[in-house]
């Protein structure tokens, strides 16, 4: 009976002590001590957590790298596909712009009928300035037909096969073209060269020619229709002791970037060779 009483007393005292401590704690009397205790605990927990995460990352890293590499390869494939699409679309936009300009040109010059052709090659000899186009006799192309772009005159058809034709550019060294200088109201001859530059010769000494003057085809000789834009004069060389003036010319067409051209199909070149006077013996 005495033991039972003392145990109950002990239990009661313990409860009172614990209750007292809890009451003090809830009352905020232990906060400095508990703060120190919890901060120490948090530090220890943080230390363990960081180490654990590092070990976990180390153990799971190879699997992640493999996954990431696979994903990276997949994305790179997608990027290259998209880049191909972008290039393709840019090409289409570029072609559409060229075709649109050519359509505008053909609408502005309704007196002619045109056949559009792509430039598919150049003459293998660097001494010659010829291009190959993908339209031939099957498309109604004939030798001597003029070839233009929306910028101006390109040249004329030199040879034709069924599905392709060769065009002599006006920059070819063998090319001569009768032109008309609009501002000076005089005729001249346009010559090509090995370098691809073009120049004017046979300009009358009486003509007043200036830089910037527009050069058009004159139609003389029957090789080209009249009034096609050729280029403009850069500078003039006039020497008193020479028979004619000469001039360097800026071509209207950029011959290094010929992609699509128009063949004027309703023009027939006239061969005037039989009409040329032959020297009598």
């Amino acid at each position: 009976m005495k033991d039972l009483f003392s145990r109950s007393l002990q239990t009661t005292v313990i409860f009172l002590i614990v209750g007292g401590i809890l009451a003090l704690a809830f009352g905020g009397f232990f906060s400095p001590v508990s703060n120190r205790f919890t901060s120490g605990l948090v530090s220890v927990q943080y230390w363990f957590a960081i180490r654990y995460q590092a070990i976990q990352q180390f153990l799971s890293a190879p699997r992640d790298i493999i996954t990431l590499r696979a994903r990276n390869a997949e994305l790179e494939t997608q990027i290259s596909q998209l880049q191909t699409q972008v290039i393709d679309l840019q090409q289409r936009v570029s072609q559409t712009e060229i075709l649109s300009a050519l359509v505008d040109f053909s609408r502005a010059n309704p007196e002619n009928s045109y056949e559009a052709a792509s430039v598919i090659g150049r003459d293998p000899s660097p001494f010659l300035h010829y291009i190959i186009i993908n339209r031939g006799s099957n498309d109604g192309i004939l030798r001597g037909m003029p070839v233009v772009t929306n910028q101006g005159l390109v040249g004329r058809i030199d040879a034709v096969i069924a599905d392709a034709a060769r065009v002599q550019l006006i920059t070819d060294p063998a090319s001569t073209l009768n032109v008309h200088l609009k501002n000076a109201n005089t005729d001249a001859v346009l010559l090509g060269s090995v370098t691809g530059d073009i120049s004017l010769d046979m300009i009358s000494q009486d003509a007043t020619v200036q830089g910037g003057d527009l050069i058009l085809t004159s139609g003389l000789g029957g090789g080209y229709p009249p009034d096609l834009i050729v280029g403009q004069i850069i500078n003039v060389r006039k020497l008193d002791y020479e028979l004619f003036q000469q001039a360097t010319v800026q071509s209207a067409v950029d011959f290094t970037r010929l992609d699509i051209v128009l063949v004027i199909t309703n023009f027939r070149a006239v061969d005037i060779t039989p009409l040329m006077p032959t020297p009598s013996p």
Partner: protein
Amino acid sequence: MRNIIAIPLLALAVVLQSTIVSQFSLLAGYADLILVMLAAWALQKGVTTAFQWAFLASIMISTISHMPWVITLAGYLGVVLLAVLLQYRVWQAPLLAMFSVTFLGTLFAHLLSFLYLRVSGDPLPFGDSMGLITLPSLLLNLLISIPMYGLMRDLAGWVFPVREEA
């Protein structure tokens, strides 16, 4: 029978020359893929068909070029002949032979083209032709001659396999 590879190979070279190589110009000159190919082919040991290749190449070129095929043929035959002559004299240094044939062959072929155009009435100044066309083309031909020699060596090994003597 493997010699028949010449037809598609030369056709491909002509197409590449017309569409791509002629776009990469230095001043007014550009490389002559076919000339360099013929030179490299003719210099390979055991090759016996170089003259036939030159003839075939000239015919193919003449289908797209304004230059008469006889001029092209004469130029290419000259290159092959030069290669055959040099092959036995500079046999220990094949690359030197390749450079020599490319150098002399380009000059020869361009001289022929120049003379033909001058005779036919085109006003070609010699200085401009040499400085703006021939020398840049020569440089470009020399640049492509090294990889072309390697390609042709592999091709010659395939067309004319060396037989092991028992």
